[in-house]
């Protein structure tokens, strides 16, 4: 359910349509603004109560029941149950009511328990005390009573109770440190700023005198976006307006760190906080198996209805003779007679439906759910996927998609942090074409000073030296890195200086950390930011202080960031670093050519390059810049756009200083993993924001592209030369020619030697391809199709320069293509979240860029290499397990119900059930449920190690191969055959004769029990035949459930049960067992029912074995051979020994 729509409705309802506004006004401390200011529309805000629970004590039962019966399966069973209650049905309502009740109760208890926990958590949060300033005093309040406009005091290590605007802090500079670990998983401290004009209001009394209003946008879920304005009224003058941005907004859920206390005003409370708005259940993903399961269900529903219809029609045809309808010995009651024939027919139809309804078993849903839930633990427990470094194993956020892991056809992977380590290290920097390589850390000791620098090229002159130092300073200043301090302030300087890790750098971007650390090794150490002065230690151990004036933050569109600093000598500098493509066009002087060559060289090596440039600003220029920035920052609307425009104006006319190259090493076994995925028939696409050369280099390194891969380029460079149209058609022609020969290769069985293609496309071209063209004349609409056609024939695709949303677009495009392939997206950063959510299976990597990806994913792993085991082993297992589970469930219920159907032909279509009620009820619940559940948890048709070693086995199960219609029909026909065997076997045995040695006769219940016994044994043994992995648990459960059936039957028939109104089963089972022919026929019928399946299996294996079967065979042979050789060897030894003797 969408929270926001409800909320909108409620707000609209409460405030009235007219007063619905896009921004809200908050009176700080609830003080009315001075008269004369604009008339504000009073708005009502919710209190700070957080409700994450779904139910209350009163509405739990109705609401929970309603939710549960919204599931189509539950609803179906409810209907069946109600039908059984209302009409006179052959089976007691217990048979379907009991399982349904069980399922509903278990689910309700589970959901109730979860909700109770949520209630407890809510209460804990809502009732936790917060400090509110009222009339100059600090008052304790329950968190839920907090109102918008309250001034809140938060102490160190406390969590913010709602979304707050920071007014003042205990620190003089008006900053505070916050960790947002519980919001986005980033544990690094972030700095937030108090409003400049209020930071002086430090104590409770002072804050209370503050007279101000805040205007801000209505709540929205984006954590990193906020625009607002504060109007401060001082001495009844014109109010001072200050911009508010996300750096002033403290989010609920974040924790205050390293700051004694802060004062802040509540602006969003309760369910309107950004955290609450982000608390949304992700849209449910459905696996392919579930889809085929639903398709089967529909088929079975069809079978069910047609069976009921056939029987109803036949019943009335047969009953046309009144002596059959109502013979003298079997009269109807008056009420029955008086009923209208149509009503009777309809009731009969319903009764047949009820009789046959077990063909769609409740328990299948329960078993599937349980299998998924329990099965996911094997992923959690997997030792191979446990990462020792992080101390964490994989996470399973949803167990609904376990089997989908075995069906993946397309893998979309992020590059940085996923394929690569995201463990950056400065490899080199290039100043004006001179290359510097910082020394690596030797034995944990950093060589001090200038000795840590190697000059490859000739040493620069005086001018060069100056440029070089400027470059280093630029890198030391142009960043957003924070220094995490250890306890003592004194120790820092020494600590950094001596290379002891008493302090370290923290940043949201690992590149920056790498750069700053690299600078440290080159002699320039960034110490800290103090009173908006950045302190650096230069090579001569002298402290240099620069006043930090402006930070033009990095964003992925601009792909650069800048700082404006004022040196101690009073000069204004603007330093900028960014991607080469965003710097070079803005450079006016500097040794562009040398640097560009170096950058390109490094990019090809797979290094991440950044260019550094600067410009000097005069005081006037700086003022102008300041004004420009401030006006943009103050804008309430379109602030981002205006800021971007301002940045564009400011960041130009640079002087190029040089470039850096940061190495991002490939993850352990990334290449091996990609190769395995390729062999498993998956197509791997790399989607990255990086530039083409770097990305391509990584692709080569990770074996995504091989030396002999022919690279097709679809980039802006090429489309500039030719039209997009021509390029696309060119490429598709190349690929299609190849495709023809490839299919031939497959036919001739020599698929190893064909040319494979790799495609490189960049973001700009991609959006051109995807953009629906307006003019109808050109076949522009087909671009998408052509593009897909090309992609389909490429073994690897690299998409570079991608915006996060484009990643999701690509995934969507492939998902929607005509084969509807199963896609998997894997990534580690916030920029991958959209594609992770979009793909069928989203995998997050718990990496350095926070936990956002991991939290939004379906599964989270620690390293890319674990994907191999995840897909090839776990995915494969889960798929074959659940496929068997689904097919087997339908099979066993065909076996179960079809004899009942046949029996109708011999009992005058009277809906007489063949089996006793207890058997009808317990068949799916206990007699046959555990073996299949256990099978679906434990089955390993092939050893794990072989699956890992031989990825091509994955192709055997591709495209949902075990759940295709032919397989399904085979299982169903097998079920029908078995049912026929059971029924007619018993039929001919009972045919007008006795089979006891005392001449006594058996009745209809013995007949049913005989069929049922054969049924239970056959169905269980069929599963035993399918089991390839017999652990002691399998033995225990399979033989145990057969034993349970026997014991239950003995008990059930052994006593006159006082609470039952019938004793039809009394001694039936024992009497049956006392008869020799019954035993003989049970054995015979079981063997006959199993025979065709065994023969089919053996023949298939012998005549056209699948790869899987070959491997199994090979393994068996090998064991056999080993035994044989062992025997031979020992024999030979023996012979030798004897001859020697």
């Amino acid at each position, binding site marked *: 359910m969408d929270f926001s729509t409800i909320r909108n409705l409620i707000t609209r309802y409460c405030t009235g349509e007219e007063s619905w506004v896009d921004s809200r006004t908050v009176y700080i401390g609830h003080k009315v603004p001075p008269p004369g200011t604009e008339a504000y529309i009073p708005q009502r805000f919710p209190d700070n109560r957080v409700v994450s629970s779904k139910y209350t004590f009163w509405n739990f039962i109705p609401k929970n029941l309603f939710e549960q019966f919204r599931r189509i399966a539950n609803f179906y069973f409810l209907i069946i149950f109600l039908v059984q209650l209302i009409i006179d049905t052959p089976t007691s309502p217990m048979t379907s009511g009991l399982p349904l009740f069980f399922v509903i109760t278990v689910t309700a208890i589970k959901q109730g328990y979860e909700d109770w926990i949520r209630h407890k958590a809510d209460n804990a949060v809502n009732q936790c005390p917060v400090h509110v300033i009222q009339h100059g005093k600090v008052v304790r309040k329950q968190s839920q009573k907090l109102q918008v406009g309250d001034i809140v005091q938060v102490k160190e290590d406390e969590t913010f109770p709602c979304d707050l605007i920071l007014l003042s802090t205990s620190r003089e500079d008006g900053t505070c440190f916050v960790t947002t670990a519980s919001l986005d998983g980033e544990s690094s401290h972030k700095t937030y700023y108090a409003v400049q004009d209020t930071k002086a209001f430090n104590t409770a009394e002072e804050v209370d005198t503050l007279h101000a209003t805040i205007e801000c946008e209505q709540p929205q879920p984006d954590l990193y976006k906020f625009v607002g304005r504060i109007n401060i009224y001082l001495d009844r003058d014109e109010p001072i307006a200050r911009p508010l941005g996300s750096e002033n907004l403290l989010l609920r859920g974040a924790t205050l760190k390293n700051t004694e206390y802060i004062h802040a005003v509540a602006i969003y409370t309760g369910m309107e906080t950004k955290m609450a708005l982000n608390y949304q259940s992700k849209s449910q993903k459905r696996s392919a198996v579930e889809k085929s399961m639903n398709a089967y269900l529909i088929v079975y529903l069809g079978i069910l209805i047609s069976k009921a219809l056939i029987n109803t029609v036949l019943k009335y045809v047969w009953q046309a003779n009144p002596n059959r309808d109502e013979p003298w010995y079997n009269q109807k009651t008056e009420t029955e007679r008086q009923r209208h024939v149509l009503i009777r027919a309809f009731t009969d139809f319903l009764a047949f439906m009820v009789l046959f309804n077990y063909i769609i078993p409740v328990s299948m849903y329960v078993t599937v759910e349980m299998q998924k839930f329990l099965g996911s633990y094997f992923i959690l427990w997997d030792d191979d996927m446990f990462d020792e470094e992080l101390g964490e194993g994989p996470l399973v956020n949803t167990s609904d998609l376990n089997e989908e892991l075995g069906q993946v056809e397309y893998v979309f992977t992020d590059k940085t942090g996923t394929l690569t380590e995201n463990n950056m290290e400065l490899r080199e920097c290039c100043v004006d074409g001179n290359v510097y390589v910082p020394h690596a850390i030797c034995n944990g000791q950093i060589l001090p000073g200038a000795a840590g620098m190697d000059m490859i090229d000739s040493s620069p002159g005086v001018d060069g030296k100056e440029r070089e130092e400027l470059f280093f300073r630029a890198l030391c200043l142009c960043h957003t890195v924070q220094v995490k301090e250890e306890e003592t302030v004194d120790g820092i300087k020494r600590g950094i200086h001596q290379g002891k890790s008493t302090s370290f750098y923290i940043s949201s971007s690992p590149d920056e950390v790498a750069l700053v650390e690299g600078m440290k090794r080159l002699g320039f150490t960034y110490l800290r930011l103090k009173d908006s002065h950045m302190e650096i230690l230069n090579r001569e151990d002298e402290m240099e202080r620069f006043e930090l004036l402006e930070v033009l933050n990095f964003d992925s569109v601009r792909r650069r960031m800048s700082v404006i600093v004022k040196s101690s000598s009073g000069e204004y500098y603007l330093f900028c670093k960014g991607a080469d493509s965003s710097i070079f066009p803005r450079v006016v002087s500097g040794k562009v050519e040398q640097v560009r060559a170096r950058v390109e060289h490094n990019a090809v090596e797979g290094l991440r390059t950044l260019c550094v440039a600067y410009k000097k600003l005069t005081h006037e220029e700086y003022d102008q810049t300041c004004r420009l920035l401030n006006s943009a920052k103050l804008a309430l609307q379109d602030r981002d756009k205006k800021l971007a425009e301002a940045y564009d104006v400011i960041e130009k006319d640079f002087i190029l200083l040089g470039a850096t190259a940061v190495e991002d090493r490939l993850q352990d076994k990334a290449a091996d993993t990609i190769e395995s995925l390729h062999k498993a028939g998956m197509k791997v696409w790399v989607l990255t924001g990086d530039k083409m050369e770097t990305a391509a280099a990584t692709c080569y390194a990770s074996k995504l592209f091989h030396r002999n891969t022919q690279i097709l380029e679809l980039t802006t460079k090429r489309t500039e030369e030719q039209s997009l149209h021509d390029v696309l058609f060119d490429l598709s022609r190349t690929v299609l020619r190849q495709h023809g020969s490839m299919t031939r290769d497959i036919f001739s069985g020599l698929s190893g030697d064909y040319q494979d293609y790799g495609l490189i496309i960049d973001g700009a071209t991609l959006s051109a391809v995807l953009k629906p063209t307006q003019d109808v004349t050109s076949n522009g609409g087909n671009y998408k199709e052509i593009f897909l056609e090309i992609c389909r024939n490429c073994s690897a695709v690299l998409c570079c320069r991608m915006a996060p949303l484009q990643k999701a677009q690509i995934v969507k495009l492939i998902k929607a293509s005509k084969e509807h392939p199963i896609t998997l997206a894997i990534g580690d950063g916030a920029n991958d979240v959209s594609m992770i959510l979009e793909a069928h299976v989203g995998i997050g990597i718990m990496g350095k860029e926070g936990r956002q990806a991991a939290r939004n994913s379906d599964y989270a792993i620690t390293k890319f290499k674990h994907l191999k085991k995840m897909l090839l082993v776990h995915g494969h297992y889960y798929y074959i397990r659940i496929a068997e589970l689904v097919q087997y469930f339908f099979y066993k219920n065909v076996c179960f119900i079809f004899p009942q159907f046949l029996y109708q032909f011999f*009992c005058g279509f009277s809906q007489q059930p063949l089996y006793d009620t207890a058997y009808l009820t317990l068949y799916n619940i206990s007699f046959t449920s555990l073996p299949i559940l256990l099978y679906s948890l434990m089955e390993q048709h092939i050893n794990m190690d072989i699956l890992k070693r031989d990825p091509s086995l994955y192709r055997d199960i591709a495209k949902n191969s075990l759940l295709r219609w032919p397989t399904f029909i085979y299982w169903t026909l097998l079920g029908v055959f078995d049912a026929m065997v059971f029924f007619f076997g018993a039929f001919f045995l009972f045919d007008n004769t006795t089979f006891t040695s005392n001449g006594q006769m058996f*009745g209809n219940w013995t007949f049913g029990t005989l069929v049922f016994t054969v049924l239970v044994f056959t169905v269980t043994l069929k599963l035993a035949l399918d089991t390839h992995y017999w652990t002691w648990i399998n033995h225990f459960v399979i033989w145990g459930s057969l034993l349970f059936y026997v014991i239950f039957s003995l008990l059930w028939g052994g006593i006159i049960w006082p609470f039952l109104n019938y004793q039809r089963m009394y001694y039936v089972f024992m009497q049956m067992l006392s008869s020799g022919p019954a035993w003989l026929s049970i054995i015979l019928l079981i063997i006959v029912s199993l025979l065709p399946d065994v023969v089919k299996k053996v023949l298939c294996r012998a005549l056209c074995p699948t790869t899987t079967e070959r491997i199994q065979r090979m393994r068996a042979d090998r064991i056999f051979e080993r035994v044989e050789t062992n025997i031979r060897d020992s024999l030979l030894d023996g012979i030798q020994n004897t001859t020697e003797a």
Partner: protein
Amino acid sequence: MMASSYNAKDEDGHHPGSVGSGGPGAVKSKKPDNTAFKQQRLPAWQPILTAGTVLPAFFMIGLIFIPIGIGLLVTSNNIKEFEVRAVAIATSYCVIRALCSYTAPRTKDFSNVFMYYGLSNFYQNHRRYVKSRDDSQLNGDKSSLLNPSKECEPYRTSDKKSIAPCGAIANSLFNDTLELFYIHPNGSRIAIHLVKTGIAWWTDKHVKFRNPGENNNNLSIVFQDTSKPVNWRKPVYELDPSDPDNNGFINEDFIVWMRTAALPTFRKLYRIIQKKKDNMTPTLPPGNYSLEVIYNYPVRSFDGRKRMILSTISWMGGKNPFLGIAYITVGSVCFFLGVVLLIIHHKYGNRNNNADIPN
């Protein structure tokens, strides 16, 4: 070999604990237990069904089933069964004298002979019929006796009194009387002694069916507030006045009838002709017999047929060639499949093996 590898892993697990930055405690708590079960590495038997493994099973089945089948068939064929189709005549008394010549071969049967009546086209398994009974009434429950279950409708009450035994099954109790006479060569008719006990399941007679009123031997008093089933000529306590252990609900003819048959054509055990004590003379000596039927039970209306069957019984019950034939068939099929698989195994098995080795 497996165990050693686990140990190695365990040791590995300890190293990072001391190195890891998160503190050893944190590392340890999250690390999964390295048990064989959790790692899905439980030792297991991994059988696969190949021609090679299945072959012996097929031959075995063939070799075991065919002799069993032959045995069953022979046993079944040795059973003497004799069936008389009762011709429904409008008169209530009917004697059939057509048996004479057929009983001649019964020379060597020294065992019991079982006498059945059979009905066809009689749907005892009709749902309305099957459920039309009250088991607690039949079990001697006092309250059910006077207030029978609703399931018994429309045979629940008559004349405002509850019917005992209620329900359609009881109401339609088979009430023909069959008597068998040996016609001595001198022309005199000797009645064959027909035993009417031991025809119902022991548990039915002694546990499931019980007369109400504990030890009150006077059943007419026990049943005084009840009414007889409408189609019955006499009340339930007069079913067998001669034998109190066979009267009322525990009358064996009644119990036999109450066990509803599985199929519309069925037979029910009627009487047992016990073997002669001396074991020298056959149970039914060769000669002519006459069957006398007191014909009460109407079957014409639903196209039913009545039969009387005399049959001996072996350990496998009555005459039924099905099981024997089925066993022989299945045995032969298995044998045949075994041969086919053997050929396939030799032809293809080797080829596959050869193909596998380069892999």
